[in-house]
């Protein structure tokens, strides 16, 4: 499997628009049959990268290979890739059937075969009964599925999707995401998905490439990106709000991390074997932080690492988010997200003193970053 030619191999890709450096030294692969997502904030170069794969934008430098063939200089219509645009871009003057048949007609597939394959593709997206409708007679979600069928029917070497669910409301979006994942698995289509939606990316991707200002900060499996972000930017982009600057002091077999607050430093016992360069931050995901109410000034539980006071409580439905100001320095806060399952009596209340608990394995060390 490791020796199989990847669907996409991008090496050393750079793109300049005049003096603006939109994409910097990108290297990545999309392996056969997997979904890779390009994730990043607006303007980080995701669409530009996708359009370079499609052939609409010429890279300033670097090599792009699709299914093992270098395609630099090959125009879009000879690349055999599928692409779905955010606006779907169906042909308004053609019926659903004609839209889906277009790519096959361009490839001079025999009429009888076109008919079969179009019907098959429309069945796959559950729109077989709308073959004679026109795009304007369809809902947004249906149009999106036609666009998907149109892109898939040519069995492309790679499917490129630019924010395919952006224009849809939440419920429909989730439905279509599930549908799209099912289809992708079933057909084994190698896919590159562009998005800036963290939820979507975790649901759909085999691997996630996080982009930031034209660079790729990290490309890895979702758990890896979520739990062990490679840079502070990735950590923040994936919602890791507890990031602390500080320094490690050795104390016997364990390290002691001092959070550099505005005033005095706060001792934080971190028993884990994490290496710390000077000034490097650590991250603790809010889901990994639990709170125990310290109502009667009792003894702290074993896992307690710090103590503080609840300053903010946000009910989020499936969970509740707490902001805790740490004792010793009001400026330093830690965020805890506790699932709604916890018995309400045990839940900390606003302004209440609490013990802050987390496992040392939850502490993830980030590299010293030049950015941000």
């Amino acid at each position, binding site marked *: 499997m490791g020796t199989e030619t990847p669907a996409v191999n991008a090496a050393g890709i750079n793109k300049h628009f005049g003096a603006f450096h939109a994409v910097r030294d990108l290297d990545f692969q999309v392996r056969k049959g997997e979904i890779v997502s390009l994730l990043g904030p607006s303007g980080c170069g995701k669409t530009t990268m996708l359009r370079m794969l499609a052939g609409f934008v010429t890279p300033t430098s670097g090599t792009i290979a699709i299914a093992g063939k270098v395609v630099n200089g090959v125009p*879009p*219509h000879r690349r055999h890739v*599928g692409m779905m645009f955010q*606006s779907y*871009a169906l*042909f*308004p003057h053609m019926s659903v059937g004609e839209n889906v048949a*277009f*790519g096959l007609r361009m490839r001079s597939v025999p009429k009888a075969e076109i008919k079969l394959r179009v019907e098959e593709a429309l069945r796959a997206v559950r729109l077989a009964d709308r073959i004679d409708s026109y795009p304007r007679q369809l809902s947004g979600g249906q149009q999106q599925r036609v666009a998907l069928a*149109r892109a898939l029917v040519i069995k492309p070497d790679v499917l490129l999707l630019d924010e395919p669910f952006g224009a849809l409301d939440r419920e429909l979006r989730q439905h279509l995401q599930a549908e799209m994942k099912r289809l992708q698995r079933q057909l084994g289509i190698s896919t590159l998905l562009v998005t800036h939606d963290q939820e979507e990316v975790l649901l759909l991707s085999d691997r996630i490439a996080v982009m930031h200002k034209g660079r790729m900060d990290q490309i890895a499996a979702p758990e890896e990106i979520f739990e062990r972000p490679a840079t502070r930017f990735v950590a923040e982009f994936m919602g890791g709000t507890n990031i602390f600057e500080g320094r490690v002091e050795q104390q016997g077999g364990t390290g002691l991390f001092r959070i550099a607050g505005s005033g005095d430093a706060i001792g934080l016992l971190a028993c884990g074997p994490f290496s710390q360069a000077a000034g490097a931050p650590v991250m603790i995901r809010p889901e990994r932080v639990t709170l125990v109410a310290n109502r009667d000034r009792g003894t702290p539980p074993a896992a307690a690492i710090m103590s503080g006071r609840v300053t903010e409580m946000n009910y989020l439905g499936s969970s509740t988010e707490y902001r805790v100001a740490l004792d010793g320095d009001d400026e330093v806060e830690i965020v805890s997200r506790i699932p709604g399952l916890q018995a309400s009596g045990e839940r900390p209340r606003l302004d209440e003193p609490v013990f802050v608990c987390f496992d040392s394995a939850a502490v993830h060390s980030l590299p010293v970053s030049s950015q941000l």
Partner: protein
Amino acid sequence: MAGATLAEERSRRPWLLLAPSALLYAAFLLVPLALLVVASVTPAEGPGRLQAATGEYYAAFATDGITLTILLHTLRLASLVTLSCLVLGYPLALFMRRAGPKTRLAIMLVVVSPLLSSVIVRNVAWLLVLGREGIINTGLQALGLIDAPLPLLYNTFGVVVGVTHVYLSFLVLPLFASLTTINPAAEESAAILGASPLRTFLYVTLSLSPPGAVAGATLVFVLTMGVYLTPVIMGESFVTTLPMVITDLVRNQFEWSRASAFAIVLLLVVGGVMAASGWAERRLTT
């Protein structure tokens, strides 16, 4: 209650807005039109002529071979002008769609410029270009490409050139407007689905442009059906159109009734053309 008042106000307001222009149209379009209809059925002479309506001028138009031939010539001229506007206008509109805003504006100004200059100045300029001693003929002769001057003026060709020059903008602007409504992603979709640039143009761009082209072509056709001065100057007596005949009847022969009947016929033909194009446009857009 408040909602009802608002609704009432809503229904009244548009009519108020319409009033000034409605008055203008009534005074300068409907009234003259009514007078024209009356004149066209009024016998030219004889006692009690105002009581006896007659269809003789319409009958004369329909049975007179010459008037029918002239109508056909007028239709032919309008068709030729429309065709030449389409041939020139399509590439221009396509280019404008791709051009930057400055180039676009420059082209628009050039295309509209004939409308801003005097018809006499424009036509005299064409005489200098297309005439026997014009720059084209003298140039080609100087290069030894032709022996005798080409007949570029005082024929249908000259008139088509002159009229196309003025009316090109009426085709280019609606066509350009309709081209800008084509989603560029639709063309990119075609490319990514395997269509070469030529096929993308044929199957997507060209296939989506007819609404604008039909609107523009109709304007040009209808305007050309009524054009008068340009054929007079550039065609002299060699190209005769229905508006020229009508003008002649009024100015030289004082045949008001006949002229009115012919004008009504011209109006009906133009109306027919517009109805047909409206139908075609609806077919194209639904």
